[in-house]
């Protein structure tokens, strides 16, 4: 956690997307706050949205932009739900190059490690649909 500047934009770097789940309390507050703090404190570029569910209902164009933007790491909730939301909004996430980290079940440390590419956590848990 530092204010040290990171290198300028690199198009190959995965985009980072954080979902705040602001319209309901399904993600534990401490986890979502700590993940946001970790991302914000790192000083690296990232995109934060108030609530992917709400955006999917509105078919917010940002979902299509994100789905088409290349490698993506997402901090939100269950991968099945997140993929379903993008699909329902008309912008399915590509099968490859997207890692979804679950703030409903994982610790902030685990999610942040995944977001920062330090540890690759699997997108789908055992028993989940591919």
């Amino acid at each position, binding site marked *: 956690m530092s204010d040290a500047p990171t290198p300028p934009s690199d198009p190959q770097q995965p985009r980072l997307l954080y979902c705040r789940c602001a319209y309901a309390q*399904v993600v534990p507050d401490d986890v979502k706050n700590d993940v946001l703090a970790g991302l914000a404190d790192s000083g690296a570029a990232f995109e934060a949205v108030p609530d992917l569910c709400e955006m999917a209902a509105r078919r917010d164009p940002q979902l299509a932009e994100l789905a088409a933007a290349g490698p993506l790491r997402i901090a939100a909730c269950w991968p099945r739900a997140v993929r379903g939301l993008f699909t329902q909004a008309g912008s399915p996430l590509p099968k490859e190059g997207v890692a979804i980290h679950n703030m409903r079940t994982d610790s902030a440390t685990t999610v942040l490690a995944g977001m920062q590419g330090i540890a690759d956590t699997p997108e789908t848990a055992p028993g989940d649909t591919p």
Partner: protein
Amino acid sequence: MIASPTPPRVVLYEGPGAEPLEAATRRDLFTRLLDRGYAVSLAGRGAPATPPEAAVIVLGRFQGSPPAVEGGSGPVSVRDISGEPLEQVVDAVEAARGSRPMNRPEAAAAETGGETWKPWFPVIDMDRCTNCMQCLSFCLFDVYGVSDDHHLQVENPANCKVNCPACSRVCPDVAIMFPKYHAGPIDGAPVSESDVSREKMKVDISALLGGDIYAKLRERSAGAKARFSRERSEDQALAERRRCLKKLADAEAIPREVLDALPTPEEIQRRAAEAAARAEAARAAAEAAT
């Protein structure tokens, strides 16, 4: 759902030509804006920001003239926030939105007086859905529809009754998710073999009253109506209906508010018949197309 246009997006620029915010200030700014319903990006370092199609407000502590914003097609406003307290920055974002309506998270709506809608609607796991149309037949509120290529789709998410996961319980393939539900697999958690083999969700409701809940409601209400004409007691008819609804609510099959808001038995019957006919037509069309 509140028919709100896409809210403007906020970009905090910290690239060349701008002084980065202190970590704590940056964190605070993100939190405040997100909790008011704004999407925020940190741009200028690392991965590039996605060029936005929506209106965008660029904030930064610019050293000299602000950078040109490339890509995107929406209107752009740029604000130098050097020396500004965060309250002022947030107010400036609100002011830049103007009078366009915006769906707010509940706490922000309470604070700012705006409207709030909890995004509650079914999300279909297309890897599981078999297009059987049971959900379309079941839902009385026109949430579901059929796409041009005869597949089930969620057509009117705003019609969904908040906190009611009832249709997820009629899906034989456990394909219906409500991401804001409190438990799996309805919340999107992995579906286990036992979830599928039990077909239990359907049984939960059907077994409860020995058949389709709406049919049962109709029956009960018809019974109540008959008694009403016999006894001329409106109170008794109402009490009967309430007893039936309470049973469903007690079993946590459907939230009480939803049951209380159900239309008249005649209207239920009309809508159910209509939905069943749509489902049947969609199934036939899908079969003919294969």
